[in-house]
């Protein structure tokens, strides 16, 4: 299963152009959903207003070199390893799910656009990346969903309570899970179950990418932007009006260790 390109087998019954068209349609849905959300939620306006305020409150002006350095550090530290979540299970689960999703999506595009035509065979590495990406998404996502979600950990709600904020994570998990199931049943020759999971895979993709306006999908775009703005504000001294880091006198005693928020 892991070395088989599921899209190549699908291309025997459905035109490769239709599969490629579906991916382009999903990309279109992301763009439309994000733009409509930006207009409605005024995210960009907020960022520009915040940037103006920070510039007025800045204690010193940053050069292009300094700004680039801050942005690069933010990309490597805050965005690539989601440092905001601190050290712990939540960060591990997020990183696993994030990189799993990226691998899953990139491999999907490569397999569909590069290896669904007649006479082409996908290299095993790409089919492996597709499957491993989906598995990583499932591991990180279900770990988060069942145990680490703030509703469960800090609010003590049961894991099966579903709210609107779950649209993104549940649709993503449905994509990865049904994608894996479709690949498995298709490769094992169970045509009926293969088609069933294919339909579910397509449906969950439409929900995931069609629901951008209502879901947390846009956090992938604005969270990196917010991290860059926060670190630039720290560097230029405006710090969103926060006090500077404490220069600790010795008589202040020992520090403490933050506990997990689960004392409901």
């Amino acid at each position: 299963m892991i070395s088989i390109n599921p899209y190549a087998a699908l291309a025997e019954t459905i035109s490769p152009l239709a599969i490629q068209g579906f991916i382009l349609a999903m990309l279109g849905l992301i763009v439309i959903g994000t733009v409509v959300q930006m207009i409605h939620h005024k995210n960009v306006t907020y960022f520009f207003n915040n940037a103006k305020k920070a510039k007025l409150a800045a204690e010193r002006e940053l050069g292009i070199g300094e700004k680039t350095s801050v942005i690069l550090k933010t990309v490597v530290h805050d965005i690539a390893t989601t440092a905001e979540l601190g050290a712990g299970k939540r960060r591990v689960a997020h990183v696993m799910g994030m990189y799993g999703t990226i691998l899953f999506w990139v491999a999907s595009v490569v397999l569909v656009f590069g290896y669904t035509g007649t006479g082409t065979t996908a290299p095993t590495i790409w089919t492996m990346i597709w499957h491993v990406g989906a598995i990583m998404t499932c591991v990180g996502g279900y770990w988060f969903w069942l145990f680490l979600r703030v509703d469960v950990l800090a609010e003590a709600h049961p894991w099966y309570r579903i709210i609107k904020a779950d649209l993104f994570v549940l649709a993503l998990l449905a994509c990865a899970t049904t994608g894996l199931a479709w690949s498995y049943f298709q490769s094992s020759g169970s045509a009926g179950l293969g088609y069933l999971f294919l339909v579910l895979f397509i449906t969950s993709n439409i929900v995931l990418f069609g629901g951008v306006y209502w879901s947390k999908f846009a956090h992938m775009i604005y969270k990196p932007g917010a991290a860059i703005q926060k670190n630039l504000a720290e560097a230029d001294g405006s710090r969103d009006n926060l006090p500077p880091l404490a220069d600790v006198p010795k008589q202040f005693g020992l520090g403490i260790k933050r506990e997990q928020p689960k004392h409901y």
Partner: protein
Amino acid sequence: MSTFVYMTRCDGCGHCVDICPSDIMHIDENIRRAVNIEPNFCWECYSCVKACPNHAIDVRGYADFAPMGHSVRVRREEEKGTISWKIKFRNGTTKDFVSPITTKPWGKFIPKLAEGEKPNDNEINSQMLYTEPNGLNIDGKLPSVPKDTFKKGVYY
């Protein structure tokens, strides 16, 4: 004004939910970020403001130390044991303060309730709260202040 949350900074970790003494900081059902569900009941006690690891919660400072139009923000660095404050007045003047979270060894003065005597059914169903009346230190009656000790010119 009660607490409010900067959505771009909040990551929905739940520390404010955990610490709020009024149980009014909760997780929004649409975006899974913290939200004050009952602003009228907020004491502005600053517990959530200090507990937030992302400095995503803000509140207006008390009028007795900062007049309107100001900004009062706090940074809690628990690993250093410090609370830092920055007050920015509306004329642009800023004041920075740093205080210790505690000068006593951490955990020394937390009551070990789990090690205390377990209350019986009568005590549980009683109107008295745990350790009452002994814990009130009132010797069985409410304290009183004799009228002749009142300051002259003040009448009740």
